[in-house]
Every structure is written in C-alpha cells, then in structure tokens.
C-alpha cells in the first residue's frame, strides 16, 4: 500500500494516456501485466505525461492499479440508462461449477457458503433431471427490500438489488422473505478476507460478521463495461448477461437479442406466480449440449 498516495495522480495520468501499448480498454489505469513476464527490461511503453510530453517507461516499472469500487452511498445509485438481466440456458449447463468457483474467488467466499448454487432439479418423477445454476434473481418487486427495516438492502434504477453490510442489523427478515433462498448470512467471522480493501456494496468485500450478503451481479465489473465473473467463467456459454433496455445479452462469445433469445427458446422465470418479477430468465433444458450426469461423490448436494 506504499503507492496509495500517488495512486490517484497516476490514475489521472494514465487516463489521459493515449498510446497505451497493451491494448486494454475500459480499465481505468490498468496498464502493465506484471513484472514476471516482463523480464525483458528493454521493453518500453510510450506514455503521455501530465505536461504533454511523450515519455518512454520501462514496462516492469508499471504496476496494475486496481479498480476502486464506489463507496456505499454512491452504490445506491444505479448505472444510468441500464437495466441488467441474466439468462441461463439450462440446456448448456452440465454442473461444471466454474461459475461457482470464479464467484467464490472474486467475492472471497469459502466453499461452504457460495452465492451461486447449482441445483439438481427434477420437476416430477418421470421428467428428466437437469442442473439449474441459481443466483440472486434481482427481482423488480423484491420481497427482501420490502421487509428490510433499515434500508440496508435496496433496489437500484439499473435493476440491481444490493446490500449495504455497514447498515445491515442482521435481523435476517430478508432471508425469510426471499422465496428463492438467494441470501447467505455471515454466521461467524468471515474467513480468507482481504480486510484492507475499502468496503463497497458493489463488490460485497469485505464481508462482515452478523450481516447478510448475496449475489450482487458484480456491479464493479458492470461499471467497467464488463460482464460478471460467472458469465466469462462458464465453459459452455450457458450464462448470458446484458441490458434489457438495449435488448442485448452476451455469454462472452456471442451477443444476441434478448427478446429473440427468449422468444426462440421459450424463456421463462421461476415462480412467476409470486409476482416478484425476477430479472433472471431461464431457457428450458431441451436439445441439451450434454447428457445429464449425477454429481460426483463428495460434492455437496
């Protein structure tokens, strides 16, 4: 944290920089990969300095400046003009659990209490079982928000339902109210947490004992014009994410029209009758990419 002081100035410096060689876009101040692969000290990068000079800098001298998530007050405002949705293609899920792992990793969760659960669903005895990745549905009529006594959980203009764990009193009414069991509680002191990071409801890090948390749709990624971690982690392209207002969703490799996708594949939502208006759609498990295979021994199910 020695470079904390000049982080800000460097960020401004980089954001003004035009010919950044690495070719990353969107990431504010994200420049070099790392020192390990840049043993070659000769490699230089051209940067535009604050006083308008073009300077050459050793690549190894550059470090990655992490994205700074927005503070709790700002996190209450949605990203203007957006309304985020997720589409899960059940035909493509084979319980690979990559989404769970990447989510656990990025939210610093222990495996016993993941945000994403992959449920083995079977509607009745004769119908075929299938895997259902389940996150928070970010409902448009969220029961959890309605019951929260302190406004610790809230609905944003961009459709996201987030939690401010600095305000949560731990009454767990939201957990009782959520019909999808999307919420997890920090029953004990959270483990493996990077306590130095400033808290943001947009990253849900660091967790706090005695407060509720859940899948947040990774708004820190969304602010950087990226998709949530689980979307890119899925090896089968089962998870789509996008903006309802723009009518487009992507699974990382293909971008499609939301309305067309839902129409062509008969998308539906779970427990429509509850009136919660979820923002996670499911495509039925027909014409499957994989035959259904039971979970291996040892996997909690």
């Amino acid at each position, binding site marked *: 944290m020695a470079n904390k002081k000049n982080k800000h100035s460097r960020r401004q410096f980089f954001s003004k920089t035009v010919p950044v060689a690495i070719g990353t876009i969107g990431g504010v101040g994200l420049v070099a990969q790392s020192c390990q692969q840049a043993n070659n000290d000769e490699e230089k990068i051209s940067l535009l300095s604050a006083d308008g000079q073009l300077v050459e800098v050793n690549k190894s001298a550059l470090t990655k400046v992490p994205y700074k998530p927005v503070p709790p007050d700002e996190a209450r405002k949605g990203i203007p003009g957006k309304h985020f949705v997720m589409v899960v293609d059940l035909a493509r899920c084979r319980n690979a659990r990559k989404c769970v792992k990447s989510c656990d990793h990025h939210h610093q969760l222990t495996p*016993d*209490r*993941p945000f994403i*659960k*992959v*449920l*083995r*669903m079977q509607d009745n005895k004769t119908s075929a079982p299938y895997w*259902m990745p*389940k996150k928070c549905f970010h409902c448009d009529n969220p*029961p959890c928000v*309605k*019951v*929260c*006594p*302190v*406004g*610790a959980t809230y609905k944003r203009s961009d459709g996201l339902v987030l939690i401010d764990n600095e*305000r*949560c*009193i*731990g*009454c*767990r*009414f939201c*957990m*009782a*109210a959520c*019909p*999808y*069991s999307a*919420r*997890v*509680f*920090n*029953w*004990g*002191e959270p483990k493996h947490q990077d306590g130095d990071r400033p808290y943001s409801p947009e990253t849900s890090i660091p967790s706090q*004992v*005695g*407060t*509720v948390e859940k899948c947040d749709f990774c708004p820190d990624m969304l602010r950087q014009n990226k998709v949530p971690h689980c979307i890119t982690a899925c090896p089968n392209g089962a998870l789509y994410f996008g903006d309802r207002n723009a009518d487009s969703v992507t699974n990382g490799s293909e971008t499609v029209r939301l309305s067309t996708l839902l129409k062509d594949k008969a998308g539906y939502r*779970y*427990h429509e009758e*509850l009136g919660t208006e979820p923002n996670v759609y499911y495509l039925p498990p027909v014409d499957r990419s994989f035959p259904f295979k039971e979970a291996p021994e040892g996997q*909690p*199910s």
Partner: protein
Amino acid sequence: MIKNENISDEQFNQKVEKDLLAHLTVNQKRNNIFIFLLIAIVLVGMFAYYRQIRYGLIVTSMRDYTSWGVYISNFVFFVAISLVGSLISSMLKLSKATWSTPLTRISEIIAIAAIFCASIIIIVDMGRPDRFLNVVIYGRIQSPILWDVMIISTYLVISILLLYLSLIPDLALCRDKLTGVSGVRKWFYRVFSVNWKGSPEQYKILHSIIAMLSIVVLPIAFAIHTVTSWLFSTTWRPGWDSTNLGPYFVSGALMAGAAVIIVAMYFIRNVYNLKEYLTDKVFDHMGKLLVLLSLIYLYFNINEYLGPAFKMVGVEGEHIIELFVGKYAGMYWAVQILGLILPIVILSFAWGRKPLPMLIISMLALLGAWFKRFLIVIPSLQHPYLPIQDVDESYRHYIPTWEEWAITFASFAACLLIITFLLRVLPAIPIWEMKRGVEPKSQEA
C-alpha cells in the same frame, strides 16, 4: 371472596388491608433461594450471550435455511404471554366480571415482564445488536419489523401506565401502613404514591383514567400479536403464507395468557397464603375461561391446517407431511393433544377446575404454547421453494445448541425474576379494589 359477609365494611376493609399487605413484610428465606437460582440461570445465559457476541451467531444452530430459530419462537411466546395483561384488566374488566379483580395486578406484572423479555430476546437474535439504533436512524415504515417495534413499545407504555396508575392508592397505603421496611422502600412508596390522599375526587379521576386505558389497551393488545403474526404472513413460506395467521396468533396468545395466570395465581396463593382471595371460585372461573379460549384456538388451528392438508400443494404439502407424519410429528401431536385437546377435555369437568389439576393442565398448555411456536417458526423455513442443495449438511437440520437453550432459559428466569421482584415490593392483589365502600357509588353500578 371473603365468606363472612356479616362483618361491617370497616372491619372487612381492615382485614383486607392486613391480609394483602402481609406478604410484603414476611421474611422470605425460601424466596431468596429461588431468586439466587434464577440469578444463576440468568448468569449462565449471559455467558452464552457473551460467546455469541464474541464468535457471532455461529454458536447457534441457525444456518442459511433455518435462519430463525428458538430466539424468534421464544420471542413470539413472550409476546403471546404479554396479552394476559389486557385479557384480565381490559376484556374481563370491561365485561364487568368482578371475580377477576384480584388477578388484575398479577396479570399486569406478568405482561410487563413478558414484553421486557420479548424485547431482550429480539435483540439477542440480531446479528448486529450494536447497530440497533439503525432501526431509528434509517427506519423504513414499510417493514413489518418497524410496525412491531412501534406497537410493542406502545403496548409496553400503556401496560406500565395501567399497572402504575392502579397501584397509586396501594402505594399510599404501603406508605401509611407498612412498618419495618427498609428506608429505600419507604422512600419508594412515598415518592411513587404521588401524594395520594384517597379523596373521592382523586378516586373519580383514577377510575376514569383506568377505564379509558382499559379501552385503549384492547386494540393495541390485538395489534401487538397480529403484527407479530405479520412478520410471518408477509412472506411466502409454507405455513406462514396464510390470512388466518392474525387471529390464529391472537387466540393462541389469549389461551397462553389464561394458562400463565392460572400457574401464577396457584403459586402466589400458596406462597403468600392468599387462599381467601384467590379462591377455588376464581380458579373455577379461570378454568372455564381457559376452555373457551382453547376452543377458539382449536377452531383457528383447524382453519390453519385443514385447507393446506386437503390441497397438499407443493412445498405447503411437504410442510404438512413433515408436521403430521414426518420429522416433527411427535412434537406436533404432543402439542396439539396435550397442550390443546387435553385442557379442553379436563377443564370441562368440575373436578378438573380445582387448583392442582388446573396447575398441571395449565403448565401443559404453556409448554404446548412454547413448542407450538417452535413448530410455527422452524419447519416452515426448512421447506423453501427451491430445494436445499449444495450446502453443508449442518444447514439441513436445526437442533438448538446449549447457548441457545441457556439464553432461552435465562429469558424465562429473567421473566420470573422481574415478577418475583415486583411482588416483593407491590401488593399482589389490588387492595383498594378489594375494599368495600371506598369507591364512589356511581362506579360500582
């Protein structure tokens, strides 16, 4: 009440004063042992709570699915018990039942102790009790929790007023008549009897205030338990998602309230030797009242379970199976038969309405009331719409840990401690209401 009706009013009143003040001055060694025992239980509970504060709610058996446990069911139990105050000093008073007059003070004391314990227990259940003030700072009126906080504090205030105002003439009596009590108590009686002289004008004001309060407390009392039921019925959980829940909770609470007053008056009558006032006749009346309230509760029970059990829809059906023949069947049928059917049957007979059988039956009813609330809170949470998978095995069961039991028992002990303490300094039976000829004639009619 007192059999000999031939003695003059003055003699009668002197006897009443002497009898009813007696328990405030006797040496209560046995009582002390009881109090030490209660304090010990509270201390164990406080140690358990210290562990919970230190390690978090992980010390409980609650996990992500069973996210509410005995704390919440115990909270509902205490809220239920607190309805006893309004049952006796409002409903029975307004229906002009004079036999219940000796019970008013006891019922108000129990009500206050129960609300106090309910408030403590709900703070114990919080994951972040240090942020309790957030409820005030960031309170959102649309949350049923806010409604509950408001209605419970309102009920507490009215209950305290009801207890205190009806105490004033008796406190003045203690001030004037009690000798050989400590200086602190003398000071307490002097200050809190607020210069009561017992003039007809003062009685007139007192009567009209108490009459007003006993009307005001009635809707509040109904609201306190109805709102508590809304904490559940505003969600989609099986067993909670029911429009029947309000009256179901209120009727159950009134039944538990009647049971708790029977238990209390049995012990008060024996320990304080008040057989002449808490007569067999009073027990008989309370027994009949308990039968009536149990029948009403039975009616709402049938309403609560018949519909879902007939339809057996999805998780609602799974929940019913769990209760009727599954994991919780033993507890469920014990509660329904021993805690509800048996009281109705036994108390329907005159021999069942004698003090001892009534004590046993009322204790069963109370035990049933506690476990009934366990059955209302916990099994519902174990039947979510989407199956419980992908979590640790411990998330599927709920068996309260010693910390949860210790805190629960401590809450009972604290409740008893408050009641015992108040009965040491306050006359257990309202003396001025038992006297003859002191009240203005118009009020008697």
